[in-house]
């Protein structure tokens, strides 16, 4: 192969694979600092000066200021306990014990982290509002239609994400794969 076409081929492959890898990896839980705990993803270091390059890139691309670790820790779920991608048209139960924290919030969002439902509807549950049951720590139903009990509307969006944020929590520094988090189970799907 002659030099010029070869060089062009190499440059083309380099640009496509390099930028493609970046586009695919940033924001998908890549990076050494990301923990997978069941369906939940956490990047504790993202809220500190030691954030890894992937976490920094995610922050810049989203155009946000991440939750500082001394403030709180965010956990994002894109799938249920069985590994199936979350779908707002289905009904889910988020139940189990939440790690110790001063309080926590649970939010339903879309894949771009915009709220799943419009303002005026319930976008978030705080632990202060939860109706507790005798046996189970926390039990929230995420569904498109209204339910009795702790109902978080999902707006029927196809690209549902759940974000659990723990505030003022000792877990921020001790979190590991063994940390117990609420389970996300699918109840029904139309």
């Amino acid at each position: 192969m002659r030099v010029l076409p070869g060089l062009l081929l190499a440059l083309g492959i380099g640009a496509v694979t390099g930028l493609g890898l970046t586009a695919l990896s940033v924001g998908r839980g890549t990076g050494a600092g990301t923990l997978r705990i069941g369906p939940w993803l956490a990047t504790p270091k993202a809220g500190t000066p030691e954030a890894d390059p992937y976490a920094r890139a995610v922050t810049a691309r989203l155009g946000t200021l991440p939750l500082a670790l001394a403030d709180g820790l965010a956990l994002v779920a894109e799938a249920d306990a069985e590994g199936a991608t979350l779908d707002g048209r289905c009904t889910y139960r988020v139940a189990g014990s939440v790690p110790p924290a001063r309080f926590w919030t649970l939010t339903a969002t879309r894949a771009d982290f915009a709220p799943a439902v419009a303002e005026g509807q319930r976008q978030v549950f705080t632990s202060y509002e939860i109706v507790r049951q005798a046996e189970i720590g926390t039990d929230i139903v995420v569904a498109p239609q209204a339910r009795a009990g702790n109902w978080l509307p999902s707006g029927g969006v196809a690209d549902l994400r759940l974000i659990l944020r723990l505030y003022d929590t000792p877990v921020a520094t001790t979190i590991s794969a063994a940390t117990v988090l609420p389970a996300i189970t699918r109840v029904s799907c139309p």
Partner: protein
Amino acid sequence: MSRRPGRLGLAFRRVLGALPWVVAGLLLGVAVHILSVFALPRLAPDDARARLAEVTAVNRLTTLSGGGSLVLPLADPAFETAVCRYDLTAGPLHVRAPVTPHYTAIALYTATGLAFGAINDRAATRRTLDLFVVTQAQRRELATDEEETAADNLILVSPTTEGFVLIRALAVQPSFAPLIREQLAAQSLCEILTPEQAPATQ
């Protein structure tokens, strides 16, 4: 094949000749990937700095109203937020937040959105949460006395001259939000200190 290089043989040789270029391209791809991930925080056109530059003034506190999540994606909708884009060139910055009924936190970020410090209302000794943001040089000038908490003054060193302060307060129910927002707007502060106002460390 060597006896009579047919069409297939020629194509095979061609592919073999291109192989080093393909390998070089893949290696280049890895380098491009690493470089682009590192460059993203500097090059992202729609980062927090760009978004906030449109709605805020330097060293002035801006309350992000109900639709705050539109300005800062991934913000918790349970919170009311006030933001201050700071520039420490003229002097140290005084940040004050009111202690709201449930939870208030002040978080500090560099210009590229790296969180370098945060405190919440547990650190408050009065009805307000006060802290001072200084550069490394200003910190040295300020005082040699290490006991900065003696006067209840919390001093944080910013790694960059410019950055952001985020004051966030929890509204436990959506109906509390307007009240909390009002309290933030009325009692929060973000201003550059004149030399006479520099925090006492005695």
